C-alpha cells in the first residue's frame, strides 16, 4: 500500500495519541522555507493523506492561527487536522508539529523564479478567486490574518488542478517568508520578522499580487531584488509593476487594481470582492503617486523628490540625518518645495524637542528625532530606528526571531527604552483606539527593560509580546513549554538532567512566569532578587508553590527534592538547632510527596519563625546574664565585697546573740 511505503523506515511519533508522524519519511514537496514536512497518518482513518510540518525549534509559531483554522473545511484552505508539541526523536526534544491534509495536486509555483502554465483568465474566478476569497473569509471569521498568501504557498486541491488552496500559515511568524513582490509597500519596508499579523487589507494585497503572478505564469520581477521591487512599487505603483505588461481583461484588471491598491484606505475590501464576484462593476481605482517636490533635496550625494523616498534614504544613512534636520533644511524643503506645511510643522516640533536634551542624552534624543522624522515623512511606513524596521505589532516577533537566531538585540531594546513606538503613535494622522492599547503595552515593556532583575529585562519583553513563544530556559527548552501549566512538570522532568545545585528558576523561567501567570506573583518575583540568599531562596520556593497551588498540580517529587536541597540557607535561618534537625528530617518526607506548598509552609511558617525568634532572644538574654555573672566571679569584685560584708554582719550577729543570751541567762539566774 502507498501508505505503508511512505511510512518507510524508522518509527513513528504520536501526536495527541491520534496522528502518527514518521520522522524517517520527509516530504520535500510540502516543506516550507522554515518547516520540514513529514508523512503523517491518522489512526482513525489511515487512508486519509496527511503530512506534518515541524516548526523550527526555538522559533515562534502562530498558535492563534493554529487554534483558529484547526478543522476548517474551507475550499481555499489546506485543512489543518491537528497541532501541538510532541517528542521528536531526530532532535531528541519536543517540537511543535502541525498536521495538514495533503492537497491532491502539487505546489502551484515551486519557486519565485520558476515558470508555469499561466492561469487562464476564464478560470480565474472558479479556480482561484472564489476558493481563496472563501479562505480569507474563513480566517477573518476567526479574527486572524493569513499573511502567507503567495503562489509558492498555494497548492492544487485536486489532481485535476481545478482549484487552488492556500498552504500553511501557522508554522512561522506572520509574513516572515513572504517575498516583497506579494507584500504591500509598507510591509516590504519591514524586516521580515517584524511585519506583524497586519490586517485583512494586507491579505487582500497579497491575494491580488499572487493572482497577478498566476496570470503571468511567472514572477515578472524575479530578476530584481526585493529592494528594487519596493522602489519600483513606490515610484510606479504595485499594479504597474506586477500587472501592467500583461494583456488583461477590464474585469481582471479592475480586480488587480483594487486589490493591489497601494493606499490601504482605498484598497478593496471583502465587500468589494464580493461585489466584483457577483458581476457588479466598481469605479476603477487609479494609482496614486507620491507628491513630488518642485526641487529635489540633496542628501548623501543624491537628490530626492518625494518624502517617502527621502525617509527610506534616511534609514540607510542614519548618522547623516541629524544635521540635515537640525539646520532646518528639511523643514524648509517640506514647506517650500513640497508644500507640506503640516509635516514641516511636525518636523519643527520634533527638532525642538531634540535640541532641548542635555549633554549625555543628546545622542539618544537625536536618534529619536531621526526616527520621528522618518515617521512624519512617511506616516504609513513601519517604525524605523537605526537598523530596525518593524510594524508596531511586529516588534515582538522581531525580538523573538532575533533571540532565536542569536542576533544582536540592542537596537530593539534601545528603541523600546527610548520610547520610539510612542513617537510612532504620536505621529499618526488619525486616532485609533488600538494604538492607545499598544502604546500602554509598550510603556509596560519599557518598564520591564528598565529593571534588569530576574523576571524582567528583555526576556520578560520577549514572553509578554509573544504569546506563542515557548520558554527558552536551557533547563526546559527541549520540553517546548508554551503554557504555564506545562512549566512545573517540565522542571520536574529536568531534575534528571541537572546537578541540583543551581536554581530551577533562571531569567527565562522567571520572565515566562511573570508573563504567563494569570494570578498575582509580583511579591515573590520581586523577592527573588533580594540580596539575602535565604530570603531569595524562600521567594523561589514560594513562587513555585504558588504556581503548584493555583494550578493544582501534584506529583512533583523530583522538583520538590531539587528545591528542598536548595533550602539549606532557609533551614539555617532557624536559630534553634533542634528545630533545624526536625525540619531537615521533614523535608525529604514532603519532597517524596512532591508537595511544594507543604514545603513552603514548613519553611516559611510565620508562627514558627516568630516563636523561634522569640525563644532565641530569650536564650541570648540568658547567655548574656550568665556571661556577666561569670565575668564578675572571675574578676572577684563582688565576691570580696559580699564576703566581707556578710562576714561582718555575721560577726555582729554572733556578738549580739551572745550578749542577749548572757543577759537572759543572768536575768534568769537572778530571778529564779
Amino acid at each position: 500500500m502507498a501508505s505503508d511505503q511512505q511510512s518507510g523506515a524508522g518509527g513513528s511519533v504520536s501526536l495527541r495519541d491520534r496522528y502518527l508522524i514518521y520522522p524517517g519519511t520527509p516530504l520535500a514537496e510540502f516543506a516550507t522555507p522554515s518547516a520540514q514536512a513529514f508523512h503523517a497518518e491518522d489512526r482513525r482513518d489511515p487512508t486519509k493523506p496527511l503530512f506534518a510540518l515541524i516548526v523550527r525549534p526555538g522559533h515562534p509559531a502562530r498558535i492563534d492561527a493554529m487554534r483558529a483554522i484547526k478543522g476548517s473545511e474551507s475550499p481555499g484552505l489546506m485543512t489543518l487536522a491537528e497541532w501541538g508539541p510532541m517528542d521528536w526523536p531526530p532532535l531528541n526534544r519536543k517540537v511543535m508539529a502541525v498536521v495538514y491534509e495533503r492537497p491532491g495536486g502539487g505546489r502551484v509555483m515551486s519557486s519565485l523564479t520558476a515558470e508555469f502554465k499561466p492561469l487562464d483568465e476564464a478560470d480565474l474566478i472558479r479556480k482561484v478567486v472564489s476558493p481563496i476569497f472563501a479562505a480569507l473569509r474563513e480566517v477573518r471569521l476567526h479574527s486572524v490574518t493569513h499573511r502567507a498568501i503567495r503562489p509558492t504557498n498555494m497548492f492544487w486541491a485536486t489532481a485535476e488542478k481545478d482549484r487552488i488552496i492556500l498552504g500553511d500559515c501557522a508554522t512561522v511568524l506572520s509574513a516572515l517568508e513572504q517575498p516583497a513582490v506579494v507584500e504591500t509597500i509598507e510591509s516590504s519596508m519591514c524586516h521580515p520578522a517584524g511585519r506583524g499579523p497586519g490586517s485583512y487589507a494586507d491579505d487582500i494585497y497579497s491575494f491580488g499580487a499572487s493572482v497577478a503572478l498566476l496570470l503571468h505564469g511567472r514572477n515578472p520581477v524575479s530578476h530584481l531584488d526585493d529592494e528594487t521591487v519596493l522602489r519600483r512599487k513606490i515610484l510606479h505603483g504595485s499594479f504597474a509593476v506586477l500587472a501592467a505588461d500583461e494583456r488583461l481583461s477590464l474585469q481582471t484588471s479592475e480586480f488587480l487594481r483594487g486589490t493591489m491598491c497601494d493606499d490601504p484606505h482605498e484598497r478593496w475590501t471583502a465587500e468589494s470582492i464580493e461585489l466584483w464576484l457577483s458581476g457588479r462593476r466598481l469605479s476603477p481605482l487609479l494609482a496614486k503617486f507620491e507628491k513630488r517636490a518642485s526641487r529635489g533635496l540633496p542628501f548623501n550625494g543624491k537628490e530626492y523628490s518625494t518624502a517617502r523616498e527621502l525617509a527610506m534614504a534616511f534609514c540607510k544613512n542614519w548618522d547623516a540625518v541629524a544635521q540635515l534636520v537640525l539646520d532646518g533644511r528639511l523643514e524648509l524643503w517640506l514647506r517650500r518645495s513640497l508644500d507640506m506645511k503640516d509635516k514641516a510643522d511636525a518636523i519643527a516640533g520634533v527638532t525642538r524637542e531634540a535640541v532641548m536634551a542635555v549633554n549625555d542624552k543628546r545622542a539618544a534624543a537625536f536618534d529619536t528625532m531621526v526616527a520621528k522624522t522618518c515617521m512624519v515623512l512617511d506616516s504609513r511606513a513601519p517604525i524605523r530606528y537605526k537598523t530596525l524596521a518593524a510594524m508596531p505589532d511586529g516588534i515582538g516577533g522581531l525580538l523573538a526571531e532575533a533571540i532565536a537566531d542569536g542576533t544582536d538585540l540592542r537596537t530593539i531594546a534601545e528603541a523600546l527604552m527610548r520610547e520610539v513606538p510612542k513617537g510612532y503613535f504620536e505621529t499618526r494622522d488619525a486616532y485609533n483606539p488600538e494604538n492607545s492599547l499598544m502604546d500602554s503595552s509598550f510603556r509596560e515593556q519599557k518598564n520591564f527593560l528598565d529593571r534588569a532583575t530576574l523576571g524582567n529585562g528583555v526576556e520578560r519583553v520577549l514572553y509578554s509580546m509573544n504569546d506563542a513563544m515557548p520558554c527558552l530556559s536551557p533547563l526546559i527548552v527541549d520540553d517546548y513549554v508554551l503554557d504555564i501549566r506545562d512549566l512545573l512538570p517540565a522542571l520536574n522532568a529536568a531534575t534528571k538532567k541537572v546537578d541540583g545545585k543551581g536554581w530551577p528558576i533562571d531569567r527565562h523561567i522567571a520572565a515566562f512566569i511573570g508573563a504567563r501567570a494569570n494570578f498575582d506573583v509580583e511579591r515573590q518575583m520581586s523577592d527573588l532578587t533580594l540580596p539575602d540568599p535565604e530570603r531569595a531562596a524562600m521567594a523561589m520556593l514560594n513562587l513555585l508553590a504558588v504556581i503548584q497551588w493555583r494550578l493544582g498540580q501534584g506529583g512533583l517529587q523530583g522538583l520538590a527534592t531539587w528545591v528542598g536541597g536548595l533550602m539549606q540557607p532557609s533551614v539555617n535561618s532557624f536559630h534553634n538547632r533542634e528545630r533545624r534537625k526536625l525540619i531537615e528530617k521533614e523535608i525529604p518526607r514532603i519532597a517524596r510527596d512532591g508537595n511544594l506548598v507543604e514545603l513552603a509552609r514548613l519553611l516559611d511558617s510565620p508562627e514558627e519563625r516568630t516563636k523561634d525568634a522569640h525563644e532565641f532572644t530569650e536564650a541570648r538574654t540568658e547567655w548574656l546574664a550568665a556571661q556577666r555573672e561569670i565575668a564578675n566571679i572571675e574578676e572577684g569584685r563582688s565576691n570580696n565585697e559580699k564576703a566581707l560584708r556578710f562576714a561582718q554582719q555575721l560577726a555582729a550577729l554572733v556578738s549580739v546573740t551572745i550578749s542577749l543570751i548572757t543577759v537572759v541567762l543572768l536575768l534568769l539566774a537572778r530571778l529564779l
Partner: protein
Amino acid sequence: MAKKPEKKKTPAPGRKGGSNRLVIFLALMALVPFSLPTILVMFVGLLPTIAAAVVERGTNRYAWICVGGLNFAGLAPWLFSLWFGHHTLEFALGQVTNVTMLFVAYGAAGVGSALYLALPPVVAAIMSATSVQRATGLRSTQRKLIDSWGESVSKSDEFH
C-alpha cells in the same frame, strides 16, 4: 558688735538631727544624777565599744556592734550586781576598780574584735569555693545554650 549674717537664723537641713541628738543627750544628762553608778560602770566597762564606735569609718559599720555585743556580755554580771545589789556610787567605784571585771569586760571586747577580724577570711574562702562552683554551672548553661541555638546566641555587643 558686728551683726551676724541673717542666713544663720535659718537652721541648715542637717541641723535638725543634731538638735534631736542634743535633746537626747540633755535627757540622758538629766538622768545622770539618778543612775550615775550605772553610767560610771558602763562608761568604764564599755570603753572598748565606745572607742570602736568612734574610730570606725565607712558605710558598713559593724565593728562597734561586734565589739559592743561581747563587751556588754562580759560586763553584764557586774551591771546586774549593781542593779540588783547596791546601786550606789561607792559600789560602782569598787566595781570599776575591780581588775576581774575590767579583765572580763575588756577580754570579751577583745574576743568580739577578734571575731570581727577572723570571720571575713573564713566567709570569703567559703564563698570563693561556692563561686567557682557557680561559674562552672553558668558555663555549663552557656554551653547548653550554644548547643541548642548555635554560636550566634553568644554574639553580643557587650562581650564581642
